[in-house]
């Protein structure tokens, strides 16, 4: 009985979904429109790559400068940075990994 009711309700729901599909005003997308969007995306990707490369180089330079200064001027600070890095890096990786996994299951 309960199953029959469920089937009936799900059947009406299916009908609603079909009605919703019939309301959609979208037309068949043209190949030209898709290709145009791909072209825009490629340009965007190129731009993003250049930006990322610049940022990466800049960050690497800053880090290298700090490390070189620390090694030459304050060796104790250099050792402290290394130790903190060894401890903090795996912890933050685990935390972010679990946070992401949890979000995906939500």
């Amino acid at each position: 009985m309960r199953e029959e009711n469920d089937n009936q309700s799900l059947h009406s729901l299916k009908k609603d979904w079909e009605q919703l599909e019939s309301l959609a005003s979208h037309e068949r997308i043209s190949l030209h429109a898709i290709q145009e969007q791909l072209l825009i995306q490629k340009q965007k990707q190129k731009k993003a790559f250049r930006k990322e490369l610049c940022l990466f180089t800049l960050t690497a330079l800053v880090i290298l400068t700090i490390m070189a200064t620390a090694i030459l001027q304050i060796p104790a600070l250099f050792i402290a940075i290394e130790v903190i890095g060894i401890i903090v890096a795996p912890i933050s990786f685990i935390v972010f990994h679990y946070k992401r996994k949890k979000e995906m299951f939500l």
Partner: protein
Amino acid sequence: MKQKGGVTALEQDDFILVQKALQGDDDAFSLLFQRYHSFLYKYLLKLTLDEDLCSELCQEAMMKCYVNLSSYKNEAKFSTWMISIASRLYMDYLRKQKREKSSLQRIKQSLSHQLQWKAKYKGVEWSEMFSDFNELDSRFRIPVLLRHYYGYTYDEIAHMLNMRAGTVKSRVNKGVNILRKEWKE
């Protein structure tokens, strides 16, 4: 047209187009996407209930498919792979919305004004279940839709949504149970 091993001619053709697209043939990708665009659009429309948002997500899904085409393993149909990408994009969109609004504020899911107007103009009437379904949390809404409208198996949905088949089954059952309670009231 089924062939030996249960692979249809269309699926075989899709595979050829994917191979061509992977070699840098954008025309092949365009053809492939054009083939399933309507399917993807209609799927997203049932989740978003808003044509503008639906088009936006469709476009995003296309770009994701294009960029990540190498990760398509041909284990499932291309359309299934597209739906899994679109579902994740939709969930990301909802997460972003939740963060932007308030974690306590529930996102209202109802037909956009444009669709409401169209439905009124065409004399379309919705069943009570429709609004109940649209008010369901996306955790239940997506698996219920994929199972009861598209007829995907629990394993297929699990693969699409990156979760265990048991979790999918319990979410589908819980979703239907919530709806059943609403229908009784």
